[in-house]
């Protein structure tokens, strides 16, 4: 006898979300159950998740709490989708502070007309990434807004983690002489999105670098316990990140243009459009400052992992003019690397 797997019956009608799915009634319940909770499987039926963790109870441990909203367009792009970055982004915001990420919430604002299949894909990505990162999505919310009031789907994730008692990563810990490391090549995500938007009609093989970095952080902190601070270089790129850290620590930072790791294609996109790769967004790249005597250990730990195979030193903190980031150009000259003002617009001129 032929046995075919039963096709899972769907209660959802049609292919797209309608305003009824946001109404609070049966249609909404069907949407939530079928698309979201059947996959995320949060425990319990209450409005709130109820959670315990032994790590939280340790003396001196701190709760870390962060939130982020994701509005990327297009929602699906080479290397990922809005769901994947919604999980990576929040996991990374916790991890760079030295926290072990535990639980995420996920809130969705869905545009009327958004395809169910897109939502299914986004949710599947989120669950897959959550599994990889070892976190659980434990609570959430959905809203539906009229056509035009959102762009397909917007996602907001909040995340909770635990910082062990003996860790104190903070930008103000950075001192002159500390070394700046990145875990990989710069600008892949920004370049991917630019190419994916289609306005510039560029074809490339670049994919987004979006990935969770909590495993990498734990590996590094195990061998470099005196690491000062780490930040993930998302919007505004590595340049904005460095400026924030320099300002918080009141140190100067000098980076070497020749040390910046870049894919040839990302360089190509930047040359064609007249963009500066230092300002391109990343979704799986962090900047970390470690004391000089822990650099080798930190690099070795990063390079042993796929998320850090291209890890390299890009510069160091100095006692130079505080809050200023300076780059030694490949030419032996120097230039200031300021925070991004407005949006980086492709230059033609």
């Amino acid at each position: 006898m032929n046995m075919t797997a039963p096709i899972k019956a769907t209660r959802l009608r049609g292919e797209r979300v309608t305003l009824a799915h946001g109404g609070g009634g049966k249609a909404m319940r069907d949407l939530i159950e079928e698309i979201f909770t059947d996959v995320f499987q949060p425990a319990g039926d209450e409005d709130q998740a109820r959670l315990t963790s032994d790590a939280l109870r340790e003396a001196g441990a701190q709760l870390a709490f962060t939130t982020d909203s994701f509005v990327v367009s297009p929602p699906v792009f080479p290397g990922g989708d809005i769901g994947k970055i919604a999980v990576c982004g929040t996991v990374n915001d916790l991890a760079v502070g030295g926290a072990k990420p535990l639980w995420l919430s996920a809130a969705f604002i869905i545009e009327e007309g958004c395809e169910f299949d897109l939502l299914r894909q986004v949710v599947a990505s989120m669950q897959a990434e959550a599994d990889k990162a070892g976190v659980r999505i434990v609570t959430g919310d959905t809203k539906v807004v009229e056509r035009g009031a959102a762009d397909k789907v917007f996602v907001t994730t909040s995340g909770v983690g635990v910082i062990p008692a003996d860790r104190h990563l903070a930008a103000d810990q950075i001192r002159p002489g500390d070394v700046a490391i990145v875990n990989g090549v710069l600008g892949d995500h920004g370049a991917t999105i630019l190419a994916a938007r289609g306005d510039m009609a560029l074809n490339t093989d670049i994919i987004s670098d979006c990935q969770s970095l909590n495993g990498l952080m734990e590996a590094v902190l195990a061998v470099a316990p005196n690491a000062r601070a780490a930040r993930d270089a998302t919007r505004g790129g590595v340049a904005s990140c460095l400026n924030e850290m320099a300002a918080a620590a009141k140190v100067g930072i000098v980076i070497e243009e020749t040390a910046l790791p870049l894919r040839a294609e990302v360089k190509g996109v930047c040359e064609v459009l007249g963009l500066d790769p230092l300002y391109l967004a990343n979704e799986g790249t962090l900047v970390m400052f470690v004391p000089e005597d822990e650099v080798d250990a930190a690099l070795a730990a990063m390079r042993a992992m796929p998320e850090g195979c291209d890890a390299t030193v890009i510069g160091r903190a100095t006692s130079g003019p505080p809050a200023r980031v300076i780059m030694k150009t490949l030419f032996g000259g120097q230039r200031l690397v300021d925070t991004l003002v407005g949006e980086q617009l492709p230059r033609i001129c």
Partner: protein
Amino acid sequence: MCLGIPGQIVEITDADRLMAMADVSGVRREVSVACVAPAALSDLVGEWALIHVGFAMSIIDADEAEKTLEALRGLGEAQETLEAMAQGDAALAESPVTEVMS
């Protein structure tokens, strides 16, 4: 509007409209080759051109590029020659004839 970048023509995409695919360091974009079109469009494939706002505007002359680089390298050699000559002069100045004769 000066931003132009060298790219290699890798394929003719629309001969009637004089469009080709250009590759800049692995990034590909369709460009017009109207400004550089030879009688046989396929002759363009493999050539390097200066690409500006979606148009290939000049075929890069490999010989001229080499000449420019040689002139630049020549500066280095000229410098070395000058420095060697200067060192020779300095050496001569330091050893007076009387020492050699004694």
